[in-house]
């Protein structure tokens, strides 16, 4: 396949634009000292699958970022099942595991108080009337983590609640991208 190279003044054919694979759906700046941030109307029938990324987030406690899919601004109260595996930074052995069993959230990444935090998480089918699935890999100065989770219902979720399991967050940006169907 030949990928287009654009120059100023070039006519943009629909075929080229329709081949763009990732589209920025929503950008949200995080406020000061918030326990969570909810992005409404970020999932729709436009895309089956999404990529969520964040950067520049300062956290008050070390641990993990989690997410909950939302209907409007109402997050899931339960239903997520998954595992997170983690290893202490610098260690070559000692893989540990944590199990999310019927939790309100799915794990998305790490939080550190030493550095600003960044990461990404893939999410499939939040708006489809089918199971929703997530996957992530992330690291901070304490741990390297990876995991996946599933929400086995047919609810159509149109929003995302993003939050640290402990403490609060300040600043930074969350972006939601849709993978073109």
């Amino acid at each position, binding site marked *: 396949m030949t990928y287009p190279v654009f120059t100023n003044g070039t006519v943009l054919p629909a075929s080229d634009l329709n081949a763009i694979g990732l589209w920025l759906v929503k950008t949200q700046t*995080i406020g000061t000292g918030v326990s969570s*941030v909810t992005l409404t109307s970020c999932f729709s029938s436009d895309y089956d699958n999404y990529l969520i990324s964040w950067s520049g987030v300062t956290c008050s406690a070390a641990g993990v970022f989690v997410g909950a899919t939302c209907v409007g601004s109402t*997050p899931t*109260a339960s239903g997520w099942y998954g595992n*997170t595996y*983690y290893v202490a930074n610098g260690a070559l052995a000692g893989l540990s595991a944590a*199990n999310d069993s019927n*939790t309100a959230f799915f794990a998305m990444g790490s939080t550190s108080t030493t550095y600003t935090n960044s990461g990404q998480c893939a999410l499939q089918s939040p708006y489809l009337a089918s199971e929703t699935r997530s996957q992530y890999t992330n690291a901070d100065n*304490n741990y390297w983590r990876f995991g996946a989770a599933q929400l086995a219902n047919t609810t159509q979720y149109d929003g995302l609640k993003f939050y640290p*399991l402990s403490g609060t967050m300040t600043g930074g940006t969350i972006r939601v991208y849709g993978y073109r169907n």
Partner: protein
Amino acid sequence: MAEEPKPLMIQIDDEVREMTPEEVATHKASIADAPQLGTPE
């Protein structure tokens, strides 16, 4: 005198405000049984 605990703040899109009592209860319930996903000692 003990310092009063800071209110929990919620952000929905661009709106940042204090959580309502119901939202506080929901938030605390959502993290109550969270497994230790590799939190440093």
